[in-house]
């Protein structure tokens, strides 16, 4: 990482498996870079103070609020966003389960929910319903009432474990 003129900082990060090099302002958030620079608008901008979870991405294996991570702090990191879940046109098992269980209504919370669930299943492949609820405790949903989301995450975990 080197400091450029006009206070820009060069960073290099891996987003959904692709190495990206770009020059960012010190105050720019990872959320702003993902949406504004990389045009990865699947990650949603909600409250921007870490209370809604709509901007959740997986940073080096852990769910984080991308609105509270400075892009410069993600230098050298691996970022997974909702765009990185589907493979070769096939939805990720979590995405399929969300659709099958009616866990998507307006959809605004969905990318963040998926990324929190993804981080959970990477650490705990067979979570209890309570563990799922705790994992998505920072993700607000104003449509579903959460039960369909919890069902979907448990179903995706069950499917992964039985296959």
């Amino acid at each position: 990482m080197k400091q450029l003129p006009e206070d820009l900082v060069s960073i290099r990060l891996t987003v959904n498996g692709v190495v990206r090099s770009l020059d960012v302002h010190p105050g720019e958030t990872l959320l702003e870079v993902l949406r504004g620079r990389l045009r990865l608008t699947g990650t949603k901008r909600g409250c921007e103070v870490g209370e809604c979870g709509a901007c959740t991405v997986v940073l080096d294996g852990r769910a984080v609020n991308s609105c509270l991570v400075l892009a410069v702090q993600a230098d050298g990191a691996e970022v997974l966003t909702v765009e990185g879940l589907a493979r070769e046109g096939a939805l990720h098992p979590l995405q399929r389960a969300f659709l099958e269980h009616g866990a998507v209504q307006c959809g605004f919370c969905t990318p963040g929910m998926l990324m929190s669930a993804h981080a959970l299943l990477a650490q705990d492949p067979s979570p209890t319903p309570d563990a799922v609820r705790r994992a998505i405790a920072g993700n607000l949903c104003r449509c579903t009432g959460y039960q369909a989301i919890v069902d979907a995450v448990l179903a995706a975990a069950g499917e992964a474990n039985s296959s």
Partner: protein
Amino acid sequence: MTAPRFARPRTLDEALALLAADPEGWTPVHGGTDLLVRMRMGMAAPRGLLDLTGIPGFGDIRVEDGQVVIGAGATHAALAADERVRTHAPALARAAGLIGSPAIRNRGTLGGNLANASPAADTVPPLFVVGAEVALRGPDGVRWVPIEDFASGPGRTVRGATDLVVAVRFPAQGREVRSAFERLGTRKALAISKVSVAVAARVEADGTLREVRVALGAVAPTVIRARETEGVLEGAVWGGEVARAACDAVRREARPITDLRAGEAYRREMCGVLLERAVATIVDGSRS
């Protein structure tokens, strides 16, 4: 958001040198879960961001010379999961596991929670009752400050402009001295505590409480010890009259205000309720 300058030092010495050269020019940042919110709300406008996430080992947890030593960069998630913290300071592990949300706990750090100096900071009452000290490192070396002397008011600490919070330590007392933490928020996740209570005590075979410490969060300008309550519990067996007297004492000792999160009377009342829960956890745990 704007911040004119940014530095991500690779060593603590480098970070301290930058800070020493221009103390007003740098605001330390680690997880950013408090600072970025304040920047977003226009309550903070750092001239430069001194990012501490690039310093290897800054969040390490170790046990040495009978002390648990936690690097300031340890995240709340790390504290909540760490077996040594769970053994020697269960109240701290529990508090860390209740902060914010999983995403917040993956970024927010112990050092940041201390430096931010909120009267409602959940890690602080547990640190009070386990007798923790905070390491401040500046150009002249390290000084250890008792946790009770660290915060001087809401958002204020004794950290000098050229100091960084680098570690926290407390005795590795094993399961001999037990500790518990209880809090109340509007909901379980992402709610700043309206009231919090931490208790530590050794429970003798006959149930007698010894070395009792009680600390209260969010009911005074800083976290406070509840010494009168401790006096009621010291050498006593929990239950009946003792419990009533202790709850009366803790309600007297709390100095809450009414603000947007809770009213003064409610906070005072809840100090008693949370004290009962915390002591019950300690007494029940000693029987298992």
